[in-house]
């Protein structure tokens, strides 16, 4: 009951996460923002939402050690339960924890074949089969053109979808369709692209690509104090 409550109350349902996943199996999603705006917090919420629905999440970080990633989850979870005034959350946390696996790599040590090898080790031994993968810290420079197609195939083969955190820069102008330059030439691989934009003390979520918002449109925001997604107004 507790889990269901949290899922239903979750603002993420407004970007189409009510019954099905976005992006779909084999699909890519990207959340873009400048440093420190809230990409990781956003992705962790997506992850927790999946975990609450008993779906496995593989969180891959190329920039933070496992302890730091783990702290993100603890903090966001704490903020969520505080927001909904939920007490006695130990069992809930334990239930959510078993649906998460954290992997960290050094940037230059990460490659698609390596990830595939690690994934195969996990799935073949029935240790962990992810439904959703988060990749945080992958540099979206020229080299990404070689790794993204491989990751797409990996996602399709394993029946999972992948969310990427993409770092943008203040001085960069967006390209056509408002898609930031980091995703130029590869945006066809992405089913969903969300931009986090700080504006007048708030952080706006702008869906640049993907399913249109459900009827009863309202723009979503990221609460800077709790880093939780909320409805505007």
């Amino acid at each position, binding site marked *: 009951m507790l889990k269901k409550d949290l899922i239903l109350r979750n603002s993420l349902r407004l970007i189409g996460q009510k019954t099905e996943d976005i992006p779909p199996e084999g699909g890519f999603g990207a959340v873009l923002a400048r440093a420190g705006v809230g990409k990781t917090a956003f992705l962790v919420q997506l992850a927790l939402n999946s975990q609450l629905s008993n779906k496995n999440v593989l969180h891959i970080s190329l920039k933070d*050690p*496992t302890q730091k*990633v*783990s702290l993100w989850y603890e903090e966001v979870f704490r903020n969520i339960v505080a927001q909904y005034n939920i007490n*006695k959350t*130990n069992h809930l946390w*334990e239930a959510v*924890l*078993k649906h*998460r*696996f*954290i*992997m*960290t*790599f*050094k940037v230059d*040590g*990460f490659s698609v074949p*390596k990830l595939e090898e*690690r994934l195969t*080790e*996990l799935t073949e*031994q*029935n*240790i*962990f089969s992810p439904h959703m993968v988060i990749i945080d810290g992958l540099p979206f420079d020229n080299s990404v053109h070689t790794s993204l197609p491989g990751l797409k195939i990996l996602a399709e083969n394993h029946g999972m979808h992948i969310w990427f955190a993409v770092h943008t820069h203040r001085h960069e102008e967006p390209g056509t369709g408002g898609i930031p330059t980091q995703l130029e030439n590869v945006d066809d691989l992405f089913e969903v692209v969300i931009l986090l934009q700080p504006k007048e003390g708030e952080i706006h979520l702008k869906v640049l690509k993907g399913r249109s918002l459900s009827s009863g449109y309202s723009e979503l925001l990221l609460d800077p104090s709790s880093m939780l997604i909320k409805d505007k107004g």
Partner: protein
Amino acid sequence: MNSTILKVRNIGISAHIDAGKTTLTERILYYTKRIHAIHDVKGKDGVGATMDFMELEKERGITIASAATYCKWRNHEINIIDTPGHVDFTIEVERSLRVLDGAILVLCSVGGVQSQTITVDHQMARYNVPCIAFINKCDRIGADPFRVIKQLKNKLGHNAVAMQIPIGLEGNFSGIIDLVAMKAVYFEGDMGEDVRIENIPENLLPEAIQRREELIDTASIFSDELTEAALEDKITEDLLISAARKATLLRKMTPVFIGSAYKNKGIQPLLDAVTKLLPCPSEIENQAFDVDDDESSVILSNDLKKPLVALAFKLEDGQYGQLTFIRVYQGTLAKGSSILNVRTGKKAKVGRVTRIHADQMEDIDIIPAGYIGALFGIECASGDTFVSPGINLTMTSMYVPNPVISLAITPKDNKSEANVSKALNRFTKEDPTFKTSTNQETGETIISGMGELHLEVYVERMRREYNVEVITGMPRVAYRETISRRAEFNYTHKKQTGGAGQFGRVAGFMEPIAEEDFVFESKVVGGAIPTQFIPSCEKSFKKCLEKGPLMEFPVVGIKVVINDGSSHSVDSSDIAFKAAARGAFLEGYAKANPVIHEPIMRVVVETPTEFQGVVMGSLNKRRGMIDSAQDEGRLCVIEARVPLADMFGYSTALRSLTQGKAQFTMEFAAYKQVPQLIAEELAKKATEEKKSVA
């Protein structure tokens, strides 16, 4: 002990298991004429190598305890400590490297860099010990010293450089080419004692030239004179050695030598290398801390006239009392002098002072700075600093790793208990990695150590040296009981059958709590239970927690609230309400869906990446929940939560899965409910135990 300090070498010989350390030391002692016959480590003559003097060592063919000796070579005095290769006896390596100035890292030319090679390399780094490498067993099939040099570079990050190349390998291994002198060296005579120098064979000259160039390139980084000489093509042996020595002392270069100790080849040049490339005591900076000056750092001097500073690094409790192995860093330690133990603040008079050769002792008068010796009759612990009275300097002790495995032991008969105690007291005193404790809950005596072999050796020593047989077993897991839902109770204790009776009724509820083990609250109003009896109720509830009704495990996480009751003006008493509370507890407990909790450990495994899959599988098989995997390039760190009950024997399992290359640590994380199947097994076991006791 009359060599000048410049001609003294204090060295350790360390390596992975069976790389040939003891065999090498045996040859060193033979060529330096310290012994007159060579005996094999596990030879047919049953004598065993000199440095393996314990019976167990001879029987098993392994070194268990480090052993010290000394010898002379080319006017140099070399003090050697031969150490064990098994990780179980790692404390011997730790304490030896702490007090030595240089080391020989022995590697097998077939096995190369192995798990304990990595460990001893870390230990050498910990104490900043310069080392030279000796690639042994070049006569073995599959010998490939250059592959081993590559491994030294890639796996250990050493700037390893060949000082020699082999003449032939495997069955054809017949000698070495010295790249400094550019000469071929052959070892002849029955025991390889005759060294013959010849010109380099034609077919090996190109390779020798190339390897020598590599040596010069590497060494010249550390010597401008060598660089200049190289440019002018005027390199001398002394210049090259001097540059190599400088780099070695800085730990920026690892000169590599080759040979076969068993086939008596390559030892004499290795001894030359010890004298030419490894430091004398005065070349090592030793630090102490001034306790009277906020532990400020003090650099010690080898000056014999300065106050004494010495470190006790090993103890042996023998028939003549405690033998303390000691390294003197400053001043002299003289027989009859008074010394102060900085840790205890106690003074002692130095009685007998000896010098050690394996299991033999030679009485001497003093141990000067830079030397190692042993004292009799001084009470102390490993790692204690001794000084002259009047100063208060202390030195850092050796690093003592935590035990990784435990066993429960029970003497086979009750009469042996005293001897078991004696044995354990002695072993724990001598070996800081061997620990003993009593489990407060189960009453079991638990011994803990660095591995199964470690504990096996001590159990065997108890049998041989103390005539005590013990039964070993898996230590009991500290399970807990708790309740999982709220339940009410309403219990009347009544004994009113004539004479003084007992009466008391206690009503209320119990519910699970997470934050504390036990909370008691009284919400009794209107004197339903007289106030003076409420503390008795609380006491009784608390007593019930000691042995849970389910399986007699301690009960935790329970809140008891009493809110009603009844009393009798005559028959109510503390005893009556204690009994009523006990009955209430049992009643409520049975309705509160009691469950068993088991300790869950946070296990962190560090393994080469190639074994990541098998390690994760091994944890998964043990009901572990893997939380994360951190890729660090060559190594990866896997974190998991695993029930303690399934961690028994994991040390051995992990070693065998990863060729001994992985390590793990384990600490308590939380208590969690056991799965139903496990709960049923525990219940069955408890019933069987009760039957056998009855």
